[in-house]
Structure formats: C-alpha cells, structure tokens
C-alpha cells in the first residue's frame, strides 16, 4: 500500500443495487479496482456488474475478504451502514453519501476511530491511485499514473484540477477527495502523513475552500512535519462571507477560516499558492523540473 489503497484493495460496495452504486461499481472496475462484493439487505444471491451481492457486510467480508468499503446508501441509513462496516473490521471506508446529519457523523467518526477504521468523506469523491485502485467516484478519465499527490476538500473542483495535471503531461500518485462537510472522517492533517511517507509522491497539491480551519490546521502540520513541496489553492476568495454557524461558530474560528487566513498560513508554512485552478499544473511542473527542493 502506498497511500491507503493499492492493488491489494478489495472493495465492498454498500448500496450496490442503487443507481449510483451500480454505476460506480462499473466505473471502479473499469479503473482496475477489485470490487469483490456488494451489500444490499434482502438482495443476497444476486449479482451487480458481475459482483456478488450479500445481505450483510460481515457475510461479504467472510466470503470475499473485502478490506475496503464504499458507501452509497441514502443519508438516513448511512450511519447504520458505517457501523456495520466498522464492526465487520474493514479498515478503510469511503462514504460518498451526501447530506448526512453532522450529529450522525459525530457518532460515526468517533466510533470508527475507536475501532481503527479510517473514514474518507462523507459527501466526497473518495480516493484513487491510478494503476492501482479507486474507492469512490472520481471520474476515471482525469487520471494518469504519476508522482503528484492531491488532497482536496472539493468534489468537481478536484476533478478539474486532477484533469489539469493530466493535461499538463503529469500524472498522479494518489488523489483523495476528503469532502467538505462540517465533520469529515479524514482531514488534511490526517491525510498528510500518508503522502509524507509515500515513496511514490514527489509533490503534493492541496485544494482547500473557505470555511472551517482545516487549511490552517494543515499549514501548521506542514510547517513542522511535511517535507515535500506543496502547491495550494483555496476556492472562494471572492465568495460572500458565509453565515454558517452564526456567532458562536465565529468565535471558535476567530481570526481564521477566511481565504486570506488560509492562504497566509499555507504560504508561511512554505507552500506555493495558486490564485486560480489553472495555475496549479504549471507550478507543479516547475517544482518537478527543479528537482524537489521546497
């Protein structure tokens, strides 16, 4: 394994009989991923895209040695699906489902953490390592194997940027779309160590957004612990100030959470900062061309 997924990754798709579940099972397989099982209660014994369907994750793991999961089930059932995944001992799960109440996600996050399961998402594109495996929904067309790592809080913007990297003639080692929900299973800070240790990543692209302080936290981590060059972009520089969480939220993030504070923090931590998505590939290429000094 390089960053969380590799050729040994064996995916169980929860909610495989739903439209998204079926479509992305096909896409994951087309990417070269071993999709070994699907789960939809009551549908055991059927097949979707050539993948056997089970009633429970435990059954699926027992029969297929699945070691990663991708959850597509609707928001009201996502918490249960995650608990089932954790209890079945699966160490990595991407939750694609959007609109999961954050109160549910608090339970999901802390339970998964206590049991050693890493969540990517929710409301996220998931993780992909070209030539190895994909657990999620990032379009296959944007990838090409290479040595640029990407972590992002966005969805389509990630595709845009990953695609830009490809069109610039570069390729990606692993790309993780963390999701932009208030509570995420994996933050920048959680993901950075994997890229630091990954021998296949030379440069990291970090794509953030306004809101929250995940980018400031990332900058702090990069400053002390991340030795590879970073190119960062923060979306929403010109967006109107968000009202989310009101005043009490504001005092938690006091003096942080804006595009300016994020960019300043990342710059201070030694990252190169792109002003627009289309500047990223060029900056990465320059770094690659220059060897890899920060």
């Amino acid at each position, binding site marked *: 394994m390089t960053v969380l997924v590799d050729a040994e990754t064996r995916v169980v798709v929860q909610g495989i009989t739903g439209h998204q579940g079926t479509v992305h099972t096909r896409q994951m397989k087309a990417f070269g991923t071993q999709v070994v099982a699907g789960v939809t209660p009551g549908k055991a014994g059927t097949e979707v895209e050539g993948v056997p369907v089970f009633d429970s994750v435990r059954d699926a793991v027992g029969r297929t040695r699945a070691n990663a999961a991708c959850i597509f089930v609707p928001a009201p059932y996502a918490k249960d699906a995650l608990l089932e995944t954790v209890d079945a001992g699966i160490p990595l799960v991407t939750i694609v489902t959007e609109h999961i109440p954050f109160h549910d996600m*608090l339970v999901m996050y802390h339970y998964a953490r206590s049991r050693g399961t890493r969540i990517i998402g929710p409301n996220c594109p998931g993780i992909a390592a070209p030539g190895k495996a994909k657990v999620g929904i990032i379009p296959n067309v944007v990838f090409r194997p290479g040595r640029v790592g990407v972590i992002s809080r966005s969805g*389509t913007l990630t*595709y845009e940027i990953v695609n830009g990297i490809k069109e610039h003639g570069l390729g990606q080692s692993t790309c993780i779309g963390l999701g932009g929900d208030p509570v995420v299973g994996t933050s920048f800070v959680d993901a950075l160590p994997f890229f630091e240790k990954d021998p296949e990543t030379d440069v990291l692209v970090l794509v953030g957004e306004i809101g929250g302080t995940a980018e400031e936290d990332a900058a702090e981590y990069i400053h002390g612990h991340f030795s590879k060059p970073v190119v960062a972009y923060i979306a929403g520089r*010109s967006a109107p100030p968000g009202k989310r*969480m*009101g005043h*009490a*939220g504001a*005092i938690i993030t006091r003096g942080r959470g804006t595009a300016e504070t994020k960019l300043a923090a990342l710059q201070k931590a030694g990252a190169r900062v792109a002003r627009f*998505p289309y500047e990223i590939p060029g900056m990465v290429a320059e770094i690659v061309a220059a060897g890899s000094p920060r």
Partner: protein
Amino acid sequence: MVKLAEWRGKEIFRKYGIPLPPGRVVRSPEEAEAAARSGEVPLPCVVKAQVLAGGRAKGGAVRFANTPPEVRTAAAAILGLEFKGEKVRELLLEGKLAIARELYVSITLDRSLRLPILITSEQGGVEIESVPDAAIDRQPIDPFPGLAAYERRAAARSLRLSGGPAKALDGLLPALWRAFQAEDAELVEINPLAVVGDGLVALDAKVIIEDDAAFRHPEYAEIRDDRTPLEEIAREKEIAFVQLDGNIGVIANGAGLTMATLDVLKEFGGNPGVFLDLGGTDDPKKVTEAFLLMAQAKPKAVFLNIFGGVTRCDTVARGLVDAMRQVPDADRFPLVARIRGNNEKEGVEILRAAGITSVPDLKASAQAVVAAAGGPA
C-alpha cells in the same frame, strides 16, 4: 440551516425544561394589550420583535411597557417594521425580571475537534464575538459518554456561580445538551442567561437546526424565513442557489468549482449575481429546471461551468438544450458554456448541434462571459 426565531427557540427550551421568563407570542397590538391585561404577561414587560437579525435592542425592535395601553402602543410601533430586511410579524411579550447578572452559554460544533463544544462566558448580554477570548471558556463534549458532571462543575466555576444558581446550571446544561442533540441543532445559545434570585432564566434563545437532519424533523419543514422567493423554489428542487448583487449568472456543479468559477470571473472584472450549484445530478430535467430558474433571475449573461463526474456532460447538454427552447424570448441571455469530464465528447456534440460552443479553457471561457455581460466592471 434553519434559524429559529426567539419564540420558537424558547418553545424548544421549554420542551427540555430550560427555565424561561413568563410570557407569550402575539401578532397584533390588540392581542398584546389583552395578554397584558389578563395577567398572562406580567407587567412591567418587554416587547420584542421576532426577527432573526441581531442588535434588536439598539435597533428599536425591543421596547418596555408598564401598563396594558403602553404594551399596545409598543406593539403597534414594532409590528410591521422592516428590521434589517425582515418584516416584523410576531412579538414576544415577557415579564421583566430582577436580573442580578447576565451570562452566556451555548453549544455548537467545533469542526476541527469534531466535537460539540460548550461555550460559556461571564460576559453575557452582548454579542459573544465582542467578548475577548480570555473571558470565554470552551469545553469539548464527547457525544459518548455525553456531558459529564465534572464539565458542568467546570462551567459553573467559569461563570463564578455557586449555591442555587450553580445547582440550576447543573440542571440546565444537560437540558441544553439534550436539545442540541435531539433537535439536530447546529447551535443552541442562551444569551443572556440571567441570574434571577436563586436560579437561572434564559432571556433569549438562538437555535439553528441543521438542514440535513430534516428527514427526522418534519416539524421544521415550514420554518424557512430567511430565503428569497427564488432561493425557496431552488431549495424545493434541491438546487443550491445564492443571490448576490452582480449581473452574471453562474451555473456550476459542486461548491468548490462554483467558488473557483466566481474567483476567476472576479479576476477578469466579472460581477457574479446568481450562483447555482447543480450538485451531483444526472437528471437532465433538473438541469432544465436550474436553467429556467436562472432565467427568472434575469442575468445579463450566464456562465455554465460543469466538470462531469456523477453529472455526465451529455446529461447537462441535453437539459440545457431543452431549457433554451423553453425560456421566453424576453428572458433570453447570452450563454458561455464549458463542459468537461465524463462523456465530454457527447455533451460538446449535443451543444454544437444546438448552436452552442463549449469553450474548454476556464480562463478563456470566463473572459468570454465577462465580455458578454458588457465587459469588466
């Protein structure tokens, strides 16, 4: 996000046993006077406009009254006011209390910690943002095992409460915590929380409910006071829609790409007016609806910037072509399209057949739409 008016927040507080001043909601000066006369609202009392914006006291939306006729006069003065864009339709009348101290208590989410956080301050009654950090106490609360007794004791110490009011706090905080969890709140805030005699009373209530938990809270479905009519329609169709001051309409998919599109437009002198995030759909009807909605906002030009993932380019193209046929001539607008990603070739071909060119480069397409809207501002 559903922000509840004070009186609705207090209804929730009442449900969980948080002590409130005696009072009631009224909707006319007559009703106000009658409530005061009947003793249902003790006198003297305070008459408060039920609007979501802060700064009501300074803004004249809160008045005091000593007699039933004064209550009527105050009610008449406030009802129907336009306060920071909101029309005052309801008033909360509450008996005035002998307040010894005004404190601040709230529970909200700390995203970085991924934990709810209990915030307390001795400096209540003012906007918490104006209180210095050193005067604010924060305690994360783990949903498992929940608010612990020691955390309640620490909160009492931070608020310098002892005796009766400390005991009251020990009962109030679990109620506030239960409300936060059971109502799927983003925020439950009591500011000010008043020390009155030997106990505590919540003088104000600010409760924000999370939209995503709507499936288990049908009771909040009707409370959507802070949206423009177009935003309301968009919500019903599950399209994220925000109105700003500019003249360029932006249709994109995904919050990040939408924001990046605004960043680029601004850079080239564009002035985005409406932005509309399709999210992840591959239903061409939803795309059509989004376009028709956009047409109603009467933009000078529209920028369609789609990167196809879950959303396929051909789906978007089909929906767009369909929409263009339905838009009345009067509402037509210049359109710049950029569709990339999954099924890009098919999508571009469908647009071309309908006479629309997709510009693949983000910079070039942004410049084109700024020009179409009349050039840089």
